[in-house]
């Protein structure tokens, strides 16, 4: 009884400390903004950021409302990420299945992994333009590596006898990959997809900062060139929130799939 009580008290204390931490964060920010130590053009107060965000939800900024910009970015992200998953996961599984393919692709893939995704931006813009194709390619280059790697590692986790059993019973390579390797590797594949989704979103923001003239990353640039830090911070919050929602959605999917398909190691 006493232990339970002290545990409850402990948890309440931690919750209070968390509230205090949040209050300190916003309080410090507010103090700094109104103290006059830093100019309004450097750090707006939290209230001003909130007003900027609400205004942008009604009045278009840089050609669209903030929801419209987020939707435009999300649409691109979905295309690039979908493409990376559709190419990366089968490639990873195939590399896990055929040693020859593994030996052929691995060195090329290793070299590719050292190139920062954002370094592809100039080529992406040059090859596919700055409308849809370029940003989709940048998202693809960001999300591709974790998709391949986790499918490959997952395929190696599948027990070899299961593959052999399926082959003995007459399943072809494609069937083995789709019906033995994929289900066995699924938990690993899904965590790869989650990492890839985050990196893809991050790469898209980079691409929109550099060459693309729409989407939420473009709002950041426009806020910067208008010297309106409240708009920049509001857009950053929108970017963070959207990324967080993507992550939460995929975490839920991952938890479900782990329960359904996971073999606990």
């Amino acid at each position: 009884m006493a232990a339970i009580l002290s545990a409850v008290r402990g948890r309440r204390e931690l919750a209070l400390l968390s509230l205090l931490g949040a209050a300190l964060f916003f309080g410090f920010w507010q103090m700094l903004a109104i103290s006059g130590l830093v100019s309004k053009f450097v750090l707006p107060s939290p209230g001003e950021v909130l007003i900027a965000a609400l205004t942008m939800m009604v009045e278009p900024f840089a050609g669209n409302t903030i929801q419209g910009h987020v939707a435009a970015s999300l649409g691109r992200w979905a295309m690039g990420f979908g493409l990376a998953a559709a190419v990366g996961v089968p490639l990873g599984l195939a590399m896990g299945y055929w040693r020859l393919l593994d030996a052929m692709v691995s060195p090329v893939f290793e070299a590719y992994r050292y190139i920062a995704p954002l370094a592809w931006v100039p080529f992406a813009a040059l090859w596919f333009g700055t409308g849809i194709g370029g940003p989709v390619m940048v998202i693809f280059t960001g999300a591709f590596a974790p998709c391949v790697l986790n499918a490959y590692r997952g395929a190696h986790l599948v027990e070899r006898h299961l593959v052999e059993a399926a082959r003995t019973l007459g399943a072809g390579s494609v069937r083995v990959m789709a019906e033995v390797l994929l289900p066995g590797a699924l938990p690993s594949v899904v965590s790869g997809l989650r990492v890839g989704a985050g990196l893809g979103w991050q790469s898209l923001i980079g691409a929109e900062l550099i060459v693309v003239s729409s989407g939420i990353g473009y709002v950041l640039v426009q806020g910067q060139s208008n010297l309106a830090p409240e708009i920049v911070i509001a857009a950053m919050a929108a970017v963070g929130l959207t990324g967080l929602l993507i992550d939460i959605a995929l975490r839920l999917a991952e938890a479900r799939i782990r329960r359904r398909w996971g073999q606990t190691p």
Partner: protein
Amino acid sequence: MKPKTAIGLATVLLLLLAWYLATDVAGLIDRQRFPSLGDIWTAGAQIMTRGYAGGTLVPQALYSLRLVVLGFLVAAVSGVPLGILMGLSRRFEALVNPAFLLVRPIPPLAWIPLAIVWLGLADSAKVLVIWFAAFVPAVINSHTGIRNVDRTLIAAGRVHGASQARIVWDVLIPGAMPMIFTGLRLSLQASWTTLVAAELVGAVLGLGKVLSTAYRDIYPAMIAVGMITVALLGALTTKVLDLIERRVVPWRQY
């Protein structure tokens, strides 16, 4: 040579040969969009000797390298102790976590415009953005590393009469070291990605400046030279970090 290495080497050579044949020999691909190997060689020679986008390759590369190392070090020096403290004290964790949770979902690249508003195109703006990028993985992994230390080891230390300070210093921190290095490796990767993005957005010198100038001049071979240099420097710094890790954590199994 193992057969796997031989096959890999053969594939790379074949790809390079196909690339050479398709661009330099047959001219199948538009060289305004896709560089040939010869073009890359020429561009490499140009930037090495005469320079491009404000300097020759070595100063440009060193400039970027310096910013990455600086930002990474600031992030490591501030992030690892913070993560360790958060791992050691649940109270401290509860106090710091809200600010951390609010900042964490924002991709580091989204800080670039704010850094430019605050500090302009100066080096300090880049170091600030790299710090943001590299800070989060350093904190998270140090925190997890401390929390994942085997309870039995701590209990064993206590039984043998070690003080709290000695347990922290001799059990918890060494136990967390492998995880801390995993975090630092992620930090280093994030540092390079962020630096390239920040320099593409705006820079006076550096490899990102080379990339953005080459893009504006529609000079694909120079874009390729810039990308190759970034990749090589990224690989090099990762190797250096690996060497440091072997020194600091010799008991880690590979």
